[in-house]
């Protein structure tokens, strides 16, 4: 069963178009407070967790099919070179194949010790960031945008690795800002660090740098 959680602090209507186009037979849920990211220590979208029949996590939060190829986009034409576009598509296909493989054969499920080792490293700062983010979403929803912005900013300072917190706050400020010049500057500032760390699966080596 697929559970697709929309991290969408603007509410369901803002994400509805995509869900309707997907004509999904699985669960599509709306998470205005990014509750799932808080519970599972997720920092970006798309990230996924695999859960077995007994309700155990068998793969920790990991990038679900996306890659860093977008960082080598031609910024004037906003396009990817064909070989990069193809590599990106291949990574999606490969990740989906791994998920299907797990469903039918159980392959790629990790033993409990390996899952524990790969879980996100949570800190008091991250915990406070999630509390501030939640407070900020409430303030935003109740017409107190200026006060909300201060808490969103504090949350991002406390948890700089969370792209979801930063981009959601940017989107609430203005639709499109989450992918605007400030976003690209932040991506640039990553340097050699990945935006989408590849999952620890066969065939998913770290993508080559520029």
């Amino acid at each position, binding site marked *: *069963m*697929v*559970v*697709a*959680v*929309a*991290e*969408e602090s603007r509410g*369901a209507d*803002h*994400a*509805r178009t*995509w869900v309707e186009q997907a004509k999904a037979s699985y*669960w*599509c*849920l*709306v998470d205005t407070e990014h*509750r*799932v990211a*808080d*519970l599972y*220590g*997720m920092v970006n*979208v*798309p990230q*996924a*967790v*695999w*859960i*077995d*029949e*007994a*309700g*155990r*996590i068998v793969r920790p939060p990991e990038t*679900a099919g996306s890659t860093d190829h977008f960082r080598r986009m031609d910024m004037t034409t906003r396009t990817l070179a064909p070989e990069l576009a193809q590599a990106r598509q291949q990574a999606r296909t490969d990740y989906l194949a791994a*998920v299907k493989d*797990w469903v039918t054969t159980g392959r790629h499920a990790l033993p409990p010790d390996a899952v*524990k080792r790969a*879980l*996100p490293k*949570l800190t*008091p700062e991250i*915990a*406070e960031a*999630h*509390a501030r983010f*939640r*407070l900020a979403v*409430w*303030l935003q929803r109740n017409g*107190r945008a200026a*006060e909300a912005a201060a*808490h969103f900013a504090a949350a991002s300072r406390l948890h700089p690795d969370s792209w*979801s917190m930063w*981009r*959601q706050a*940017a*989107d609430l400020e203005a639709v499109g800002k*989450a992918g605007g010049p400030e976003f690209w500057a932040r991506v640039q500032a990553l340097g050699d660090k990945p935006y989408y760390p590849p999952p620890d699966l066969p065939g998913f080596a770290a993508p080559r740098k520029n």
Partner: protein
Amino acid sequence: MATILTDRGELTAATDDGLWLDAADAERATGWVLKPEGMCCDDLCVPLPAAMVAAGRVDVAGFWRRLGNPVVHDEARQVWALGAGAAARRDALAGDAAPDFALPDFAGVTRRLSELRGRKVFLSTWASW
């Protein structure tokens, strides 16, 4: 009246300065029960310093921080978020069952992860932004 955001949901309660709640509201907000020996949850009791309890009311913000959890509030101290500390989140993630949650679908129907026990679940996030 203050608004309190917790893992257990959103509630409103009468407060004094700060987040002093009567025992019933303290339990609604935290799941912990005020007893003579302190704040108790199942078999576990945490003693409260004298400064955190007065006339049947509990300094819930102080108590929550004492458990290692974050507490944040708005400027007017009327909206409070009682978060979960790093250790609590870590323990839940490393536990035997994936952390449970309930969220609405696009028709407004509440779905709970644990309803899917017995099936493999691919839990994935996405966003419009």
